[in-house]
């Protein structure tokens, strides 16, 4: 089913500088109770400090939702995979195990899962999610489907496998990732 979103979250991994603005910004999103739902990973901390953001990829057929015994995880019409519904969630933690990227976390006090909801209060109106709004390096971008198509054309590598999508990750995802090496295909100006 084609989602209704005008724009997509697009991640250009090479750009990340590990500033963790995306984490700080996530805490500022309405209803997030000042808790971030995204993560930044130090790829090789004792070497060169390359970092990468670990975001919910808002899978088209999400393992978290599939694993939920009571369908507490809903997929919004924009494609966003929402946080568990308070009234339904059993606190069984199946989703936290099922997600291949470790995104859903468990709140021990409330016995409730919480995860990235793609800032649904913003993205439903095509306003960028907080993380992509602030990301100072354009690692996280909120771009139109036309812009995405243009990027795909520009950055096609020889093997054409430029976005993280089936079969390389869990499955088809609504969030697009540019695999490291974005500049490989860039022709130099002089």
């Amino acid at each position, binding site marked *: 089913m084609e989602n209704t979103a005008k724009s997509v979250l697009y991640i250009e991994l*090479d*750009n990340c*500088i*590990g*500033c*963790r*603005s995306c*984490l*700080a*910004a996530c*805490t*500022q999103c*309405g209803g997030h109770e000042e808790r971030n739902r995204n993560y930044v990973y130090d790829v090789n*901390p*004792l*070497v*060169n*400090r*390359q970092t990468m953001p670990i975001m919910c990829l808002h899978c088209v057929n999400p393992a978290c939702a599939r694993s939920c015994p009571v369908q507490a995880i809903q997929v919004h019409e924009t494609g966003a995979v929402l946080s568990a519904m308070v009234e339904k969630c059993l606190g069984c933690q199946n989703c936290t195990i099922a997600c291949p990227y470790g995104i859903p976390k468990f709140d021990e006090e409330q016995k409730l899962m919480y995860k990235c909801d793609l800032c649904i*209060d*913003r993205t439903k*109106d095509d*306003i*960028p999610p*907080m993380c992509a*709004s*602030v*990301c*100072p*390096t*354009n690692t996280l971008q909120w771009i139109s489907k036309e812009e995405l198509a243009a990027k795909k054309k520009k950055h096609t590598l020889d093997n054409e496998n430029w976005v993280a999508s089936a079969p390389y990750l869990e499955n088809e995802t609504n969030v697009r990732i540019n695999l490291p090496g*974005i*500049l490989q295909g*860039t*022709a*130099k*100006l*002089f």
Partner: protein
Amino acid sequence: MLKDNVFPVKDIPNVVHPNETLVATHCCYCGMQCGMNLRVNTKSNRIVGVEPRYDWPVTLGKMCPKGVTAYQTVNHPERLTTPLIRDDASKKGTPDGFREATWEEALDRIVSRFKELQANYGKDSLSVFSGVSMTNEKCYLTGKFARVGLQTRYIDYNGRFCMSSAAAGFMRSFGVDRGSTVPWTDIPETDCLFVAGSNAAECHPTSMFRIWAVQERGGYLIVADPRETPIARRADVHLDLRPGTDLALANGILHQLIERGFADESFVAAHTNGFEETKAIVSAFTPEYTSEITGVAPDKIVRAAELYGKAPNAIVMFARGIEQQHKGADNVSAYTNLALVTGKIGRPKSGVATFTGQGNGQGGREHGQKADQLPGYRKLTEPKHVQAICDVWGIAPEEMPKPGVSAYEMFGLMTDKTIRGLYLVCSNPAVSAPNQNFVRAALRELDFMVCSDFFLSESAEYADVVLPATSWSEDEGTVTNLEGRIIKINKAQEPVGESKPDWAIQIAIAERMGRGRYFSHLTDPKAIYDELRLASKGGYADYYGATWEKIERQQGVFWPCKSEEDEGTPRMFLDRKFFHADGKANICALPYRPAAEEPDAEYPLRLTTGRVVYHYLSGNQTRRVPFLRDMCPEPFVEVHPALAAQYGIAHEDRVRLYTRRGEAVFAVKITEAIRQDTVFVPYHFGKEQSINLLTNDALDPMSRMPEFKACAAQMVKIG
């Protein structure tokens, strides 16, 4: 208005939460001055959060983690809310021994002690030490407060630790000091960026989307830095030099540019002086010789020169890495030489820019807070300049105090009792000055010290009276960002507790000192700004035409802006007129000098210092923000794995670092991102965690900037 072809402003609606309004303003931290909206609860009238400001053309809503959490300092539980008085001087240097007082009592205490000191030891026994994280209005007023209110010659500011080498270098090269000759929106459109001594990704993160865009367009990125910082990691050429050898590297690159025919001879002949002398000086700096001094491989030097030389447009950018040295001003002029010799200046997409560390590092250095300088960048040694300011201030030229001494030198005068009283505002020298043991002893030596701040900083612990100042969002005014763009910051909530803006505090003190007639018309920031505009009129940094109204309408005004009709000057020197009397720029012949202290058998390592992305300056604000503190709670020392093996130390071991000035213990962070002969420690931490216990106080003869970036150190494993 400026057009940005690579990143046009998108029309994104603001999100307004229920029961809230948004106040559009700018971040309180670095010189980027990112646009942000503060969320204000309409019932409590308090700031409760932040929303991106997508319409601000410089940053388009982007913020670093400091920016996102900046609002959390405003209503922080540790805010100072009443004046504090210390009756027992024996507790100086600790947070203890203060009692709450009324403003009346605090001001009376200050004025009676100031008058007593001046009666016994002369007017110049008082001093003012200020900062540039304040608005232009406050910076301007602080200069006037010292010279007219307290009538002392001793005023200087923490820009001596931060911006003064850039200022001195630009003055010598161009005859004017505007930190960037091009707007930031030109950056993504240039073809080659040469970034020297700037950890831009951590210190000015919101520049990074424009910097990466240069490479995405197929342009080149050259980075000179002893560390493989995030920006160096992706550079086309990383010049991994030894700390303190930047001048040799710049001379070496210039030598290559000239050798390989990249000099623009007609530009050089028509618009510059000094080329022949400079050519003679740099002729010795062959790639091999330069490599010997700097440790950078010769072919990298050749490649960097080739890329910069060939680029149709190129921008040279630099920051504290080259400036915080005892030859910082020379380093700045040496890098500026590259642009002048190749004629890559005075046109769009080409030029020179420095990343300003402090929020108002640009504006704050123009309005007369420096020991030797009056508003509009006028000189205290020029009778005509003095007269111009005396006319605005309504004093006679004989009443104008003489030039004083620079920031670090003031501590020397405290030690020998020439200076006995200190009014410290918006600065934390007990963390940020070099050679801390000396500086802390100097503060202890004072007969009387006042500190105005909004948290009890490490420096405030030495004060006799602490005054609660307002934070940036409880007042309004202007700041000048790193592009030279004058922008407006706005008030979002009423001051916390009994805190007052610094301008109001200074005017109250001046009145009680019997100098009220020079200040009483300055009833709000706008009135102060209008006097600043007059005082800067006809000066180098001319703000006269940049009214608040125009700043709002144009989304900032670039100085110089000389009249009502003038829209301001986003790009400098488009007419190829530099600001020296003959209209030409100086290409500077700069002989190489090594660092003031070179490694030896006893102190075999080089120590360099810098920032992390989570903290700002001395950390007085950011160490109190939970998110930022959690991300980086402690300083660390970066050690290369090969050096670690040699010393038998592992990741997270603790080591003691020594220099000739002090010692401190740090946790080890093993990383290949540092040179094998160098260790790095961030400087945002106080007390015994301050790396400035170890740094060198050798001063640049021209800018009086200390050598924070290179000294000789010893490392010993403990435990």
